């Protein structure tokens, strides 16, 4: 089963690369993504025996299930949208783009399945390499610059994570134990490992994978990458790849939790979470580029995720739920922003206004997405953010809780000004116009994502609830 989960998207990548027609190739995307989701659903809920492979190097545990299931669903939404979007860009071949989409899906699946710190590292490195060509889709100097920053900063982050993995392995060697990088063995052995090495390893791994996740102050690649890439790539990075990096951090946290360094790790996570939120709030004020604004929103929500884990208990459950809610809402925002960008040929608020009139559905979805992501009920992010906040106060972290609320309000105001400038008003004569108007193929996937985010705000289906509870329990008690 584990092999099938990996080989299927890989085969689809090869197939997409082999298909000669630019018109037919995008139609493979939703097909392949739906197939992958079916396989994942079977692995999550119906598989009679545990999903495992490669002599234990691949293993699907409770935490992996949440991330794997979510990234597969998100990939289906992206693929569905891309099938409608790529024909609009018929002036450019989409061979590499389609193949890379499937390749990224493969590498994300690998990160979720790997049960070994080294293999997980390989998977993260591979996501960076596989996603870089998609950033360069527009082939202009701006997208080249964004790709360059993404690769350079991402590679340095991944290199630091490798050094951190080395430190972790060495901490066992130094204590006279057999070096291992299997998660379950590390969790078992960690109380006997050498504390100074563990301490240094956690910092390096957190900073390294935090760079991939886009936590401040290692977030500098994000505004450029999300600003220049097509909306569908932004969605996949902001919802999928960053979730995988978050999973990597959760793994490291699980290991460190069993050691004497646990308190330090939690404090660091709370601090970095609040720092990311503050940094995002500052840069969102008077932001004129609405795609860059979304990148800062992603920085903010990555901060919320890490903060939730640092607080622990109910907040950890909230963070896992928020992973899903944030990803779905980001899909709404990035994809509708992509449509608006297409309709105006610009992503600056000086040139874009009155989106409600020109592309009514995309404009409305963009506005709804903004309300959802800033925590307005009844959407999903409200529930998860509320869970995290109440757990923060219940845990006695009053300062962190108060800062959290203030920063949420600041983000709401900063983001609101930009979003309203985009959707309201009437376009003046001088506003450039393109032939793009809303159509079913580019609007339906966004609507589906919004409905899912709304559903999660009103009612969490029992199987998902079980999955989340199991994952939160496993996160804090991995043995």
């Amino acid at each position, binding site marked *: 089963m584990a092999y099938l989960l990996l080989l299927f998207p890989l085969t689809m990548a090869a197939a997409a690369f082999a298909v000669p027609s630019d018109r037919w190739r995008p139609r493979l995307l939703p097909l392949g993504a739906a197939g992958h989701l079916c396989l994942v659903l079977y692995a999550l809920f119906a598989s009679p025996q545990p999903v495992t492979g490669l002599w234990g190097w691949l293993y699907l545990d409770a935490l992996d299930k949440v991330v794997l299931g979510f990234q597969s669903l998100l990939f289906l939404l992206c693929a569905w949208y891309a099938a409608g979007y790529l024909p609009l860009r018929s002036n450019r071949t989409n061979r590499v783009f389609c193949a890379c989409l499937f390749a990224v899906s493969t590498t994300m699946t690998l990160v979720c399945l790997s049960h070994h710190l080294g293999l997980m590292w390989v998977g993260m490195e591979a996501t960076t390499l596989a996603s870089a060509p998609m950033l360069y889709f527009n082939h202009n100097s701006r997208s*080249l610059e964004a790709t360059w*920053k993404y690769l350079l900063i991402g590679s340095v982050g991944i290199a630091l994570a490798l050094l951190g993995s*080395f430190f972790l392995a060495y901490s066992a060697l130094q204590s006279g134990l057999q*070096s291992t990088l299997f998660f379950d063995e590390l969790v078992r052995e960690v109380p006997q490992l050498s504390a100074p090495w563990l301490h240094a390893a956690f910092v390096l791994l957190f900073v390294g994978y935090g760079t991939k996740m886009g936590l401040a102050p290692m977030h500098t690649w994000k505004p450029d990458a999300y600003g220049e890439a097509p909306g569908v790539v932004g969605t996949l990075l902001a919802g999928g790849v960053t979730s995988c990096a978050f999973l990597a951090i959760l793994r490291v946290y699980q290991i460190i939790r069993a050691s004497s360094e646990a308190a330090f790790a939690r404090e660091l996570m709370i601090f970095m979470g609040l720092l990311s939120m503050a940094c995002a709030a500052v840069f969102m004020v008077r932001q004129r580029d609405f795609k860059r604004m979304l990148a800062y929103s992603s920085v903010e929500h990555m901060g919320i995720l890490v903060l939730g884990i640092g607080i622990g208990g109910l907040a950890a459950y909230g963070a896992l739920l928020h992973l899903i809610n944030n990803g779905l809402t980001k899909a709404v925002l990035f994809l509708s922003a992509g449509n608006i960008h297409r309709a105006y040929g610009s992503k600056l608020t000086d040139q874009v206004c009155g989106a409600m009139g020109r592309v009514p559905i995309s404009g409305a979805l963009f506005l709804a997405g903004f309300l959802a992501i800033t925590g307005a009920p009844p959407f999903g992010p409200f529930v998860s953010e509320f869970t995290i906040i109440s757990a923060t106060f219940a845990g006695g972290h009053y300062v962190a809780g108060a800062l959290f609320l203030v920063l949420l309000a600041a983000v709401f105001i900063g983001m609101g000004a930009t979003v309203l400038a985009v959707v309201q008003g009437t376009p003046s004569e001088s506003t450039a116009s393109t032939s793009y108007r809303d159509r079913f193929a580019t609007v339906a996937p966004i609507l589906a994502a919004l409905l899912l985010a709304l559903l999660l705000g009103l009612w969490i289906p029992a199987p998902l609830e079980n999955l989340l509870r199991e994952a939160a329990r496993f996160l804090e008690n991995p043995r």
Partner: protein
Amino acid sequence: MAQILDPLLILALALNFYALGVSRIRAVIDAVALQGMLLGLAPLVCHTGTGVRGLLLVVVTVVLKGVVIPRLLVRAMREANIQHEVSPYVGHMASLFLGAIGTGLALAFSFALPVADAHAGLLIVPASLATVWTGFLLLTTRRKAITQVLGYLVLENGIFLFGLLLLEAVPFLVEIGVLLDLFTGVFVMGIIIHQISRSFASISTEHLTELREQLPEMQE
């Protein structure tokens, strides 16, 4: 093995300073290539019973770091007509000074980290940390894209050096880590340098400054 390894490491440290101090890019490329080759050979010194896999790793790293990558970089320089000066944001004296401070801190920090008995008295940990620090300096204080690639390579050398301690314990991680990092270095950065030189006619990252936060405009 300390008799052979220590001079090797000291040479690698000296190359760190050389790379920080010289002003011609060609010299930095040569220094990084030499450092990569020296460290690539180190597993032979460290481990008496190097198997076929170990030998393969040595051959691959030496060939890639010593021959392939430097050639790629020199070619990129020639084709893009890059000027031969490093043009740092931070002057050479200041970078040397920062490098010295970093090396001192690396020594101090490595005393706080207990090492296994088999590795007691070796310079590997401080040398590795100092090299990682030098890589960071080159990455952050140099203007041109090509020197940033060189910084990444030095950073990678430092990580490889630490990997020497683990080559017997977790060979898979060290081998795959080193090779994948090199893969990133060679292919992607090679391609990017090629593309940057085509689009901008020079590969200074100063051209890569279009994307940044624009300050809100003043009221007119």
